[in-house]
């Protein structure tokens, strides 16, 4: 009789423990995803903030490149107004900004005096540093989202996710600009 009671108690306890563990892991991962997205958002804002200084420095040298500079300023404005979430709209806006910055750096390639400007070089290095951090943070974010989604869909944690309404999370894909934007600096 005692044995039967013990087996029944165990049969009840095991699913409860599994469900609690799944719930706690899903909560932890959802919280991490939110925190990581905030980190990416901060780095993206830093990149937005670098653009006016880059444009100001470039406009002193590249007086005939107004279109490129204006396109970059417009791309920055669109990126600042885009969703605060990792949506396709945000991805498109940030990729346009990347293209705008690539265009500006291509202009710099044609103006050696601009490339030699210490302030411009410093800004370019800062930009690449920020972009390196964006790439790393974005990869961390995507790996965590993938793990969260795996848990959300796999048995038995999918039952917990469904019961408590854990929503799907979206990955955040961007072009990797750091390699193209890097200045040539010796270690």
């Amino acid at each position, binding site marked *: 009789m005692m044995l039967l009671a013990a087996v029944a108690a165990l049969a009840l306890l095991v699913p409860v423990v599994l469900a609690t563990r799944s719930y706690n892991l899903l909560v932890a991962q959802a919280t991490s995803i939110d925190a990581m997205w905030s980190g990416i958002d901060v780095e993206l804002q830093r990149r937005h903030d670098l653009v006016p200084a880059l444009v100001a420095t470039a406009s002193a040298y590249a007086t005939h490149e107004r279109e490129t500079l204006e396109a970059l300023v417009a791309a920055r404005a669109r990126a600042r107004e885009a969703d605060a979430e990792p949506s396709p709209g945000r991805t498109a806006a940030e990729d346009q900004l990347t293209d705008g910055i690539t265009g500006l750096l291509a202009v710099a390639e044609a103006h050696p005096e601009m490339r030699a400007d210490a302030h411009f070089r410093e800004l370019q290095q800062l930009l690449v540093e920020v972009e390196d951090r964006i790439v790393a943070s974005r990869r961390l974010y995507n790996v965590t989202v993938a793990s969260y989604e795996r848990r959300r869909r796999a048995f038995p944690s999918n039952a917990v996710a469904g019961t408590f309404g854990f929503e799907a999370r979206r990955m955040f894909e961007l072009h990797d600009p750091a390699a193209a934007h*890097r200045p040539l600096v010796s*270690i």
Partner: protein
Amino acid sequence: MVEEALGWMVWAAIGVGVAAPLWQRTADRVRRRRARTAFGRLLERGQLDAAPLPLGKADLHWASFRALPVGHTSHHSRWAVTRTITVTIESEEHELRVAAFEWHWDDMGQRHEERARKVRWRRTVAAIVELPVPSPSRVSIVPLGPTDTMMGAIVGPHGGFEVESHEFNRAFTVEFRDDTLAMKLLDAGMQHRLVTSLQGQRVELDENWLLVVGRPSHRDDSLYGPVGDLPAVIEDARAVAQAIPDAFWRAARRQRERLLRGGR
């Protein structure tokens, strides 16, 4: 009849008790002599130089790295060799110093009674590369044991730091202070390099040093014992140094610039 048999057994036990340590000592002497000969042959090839201390630093210095076990009371390096390797960093070739050696440490087991303790020497092979810029913080890539791998296969990933490669997550765990830096280090190329060539080896980046510790991906069978592992572990360390992504070097350079300016 029984007494006679017992007598023979006692004499046999005494014989084994005397012969075994003698045999052990002779075998050790032969092993050391063969290793010395192999070490001499390795140096004769002219690619490696013997080093009294690996990269001029005492064993105590290397023992401060987590990748090298310190043992209960003692540790030391043996058969240290050094050479220069060429590594391309951010499209520029750099000459880096590298040392390889066999690392010994004592393992006294779990028994605490003083008399029951028996010192057992353990050993592994290590290579150390001197980096041109210090790593902004320590990153250690530790191979998972068979139990961890089996548990991972049954109950899923271990729940710690993960990268994109499932194979990497099953084979290694990563210790770090800065997860973004760890992610910069473990790009797709580095993940591939570690999974395909360095399973079972521990990789650690700390300050100016890159350590690769453990049985190398291959060995030179023409050289006896640990000496045959030395060229291979150097080659593995060179491959890891070469696989360090540019983003990691940029982060390291910026950190050094900040330190030189006196900032954080």
